[in-house]
């Protein structure tokens, strides 16, 4: 057989073999054939982990939260957002917040203040599509937790109709 063909076949074999190779799950395989030694294969996988959400009183990050029905026009809502992560890909959590809406009436957002540690970052010009970075994560081999306090201050309600207004605050993860 042609040498080049042999090389090609070998490479193909290795390539096809790679298709079936996976990360595998933690576990152990044990085989025993008559008259042969017993071999135990142990496998361990260090998996990545991630979760984010709004912090509740018990310290867990819940996927959703509300401001307990508190009137945002009386007291600006303040939420604690956080994540726990351990993986090989960095990311930024990015928030958007809509104006407070009641039919065609809208109470704009006057400002969003994000506090991380002792540092305040204030964003004043906000539309429904304005993306505001909240927290960033750089890849790490250990579990990293971070949190930020988000304060949303509604604008003036003068000239707006009486009624209940709703605003939606969303936080997405944007990977690097």
């Amino acid at each position: 057989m042609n040498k080049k063909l042999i090389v090609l076949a070998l490479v193909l074999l290795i390539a096809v073999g790679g298709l079936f190779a996976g990360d595998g799950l933690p576990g152990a395989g044990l085989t025993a054939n008559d008259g042969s030694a017993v071999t135990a294969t142990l496998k361990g996988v260090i998996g990545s982990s991630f979760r984010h959400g709004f912090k509740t009183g018990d310290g867990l990050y819940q996927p959703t939260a509300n401001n307990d029905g508190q009137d945002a026009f009386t007291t600006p809502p303040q939420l604690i957002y956080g994540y726990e992560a351990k993986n090989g890909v960095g990311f930024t959590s990015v928030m958007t917040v809509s104006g407070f809406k009641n039919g065609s009436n809208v109470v704009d957002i006057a400002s969003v203040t994000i506090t991380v540690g002792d540092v305040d970052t204030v964003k004043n010009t906000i539309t429904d599509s304005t993306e505001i970075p909240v927290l960033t994560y750089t890849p790490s081999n250990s579990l990293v937790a971070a949190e930020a306090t988000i304060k949303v201050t509604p604008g003036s309600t003068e000239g707006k109709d009486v009624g209940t207004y709703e605003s939606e605050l969303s936080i997405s993860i944007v990977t690097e």
Partner: protein
Amino acid sequence: MRRTIVVTFLITLLCAPLFASSPLPKSGMEPITVRMVGVIQPRDVEIVITDEAGAELTSGEGLLVFDFPALEQWDVTQSLRFSYSSHLASNKRGYLSFQFDEVSSDDNDSLRVSLELKSDDRYNTRVENGNTFNTLFVAGYQDTTPMGTLTVRIQKNINDIYTAGLYSGVISMTYTEES
């Protein structure tokens, strides 16, 4: 040559997985959302009265002081402006009526007094019976919206004879709403 290219391509394919980084886990990556609620409460009509100097009459009673000139005839006036602020869920109609007792002295001399009402918002306030502001209070936020002006006029003709002294009287206001 062609086979070399094929082999190189296959080796590249083979090695590609070695450089792939571990992705973020899919679970928990979904966007999270929180709803916030704000409430604009209705605020009832609050009528504000200001005098000619722009001072607001805040108490339940206001005092108008007239200085009568020492002439054979005179005509003195003082005006009060009425405005309102409110934040109503729907339109509401109200009536502000004025009555006055005689302005008289201890000697029971009575002055010639008249009340003149003028609308300051011809679309929403009209004068009825010469003594009532009929006002449509408009829904939504209203900040210091003019209603009308009340002018108190006191006159003395040449033939009127009044004794010197202090004259006093009372103007009362009554507010009612359309049920």
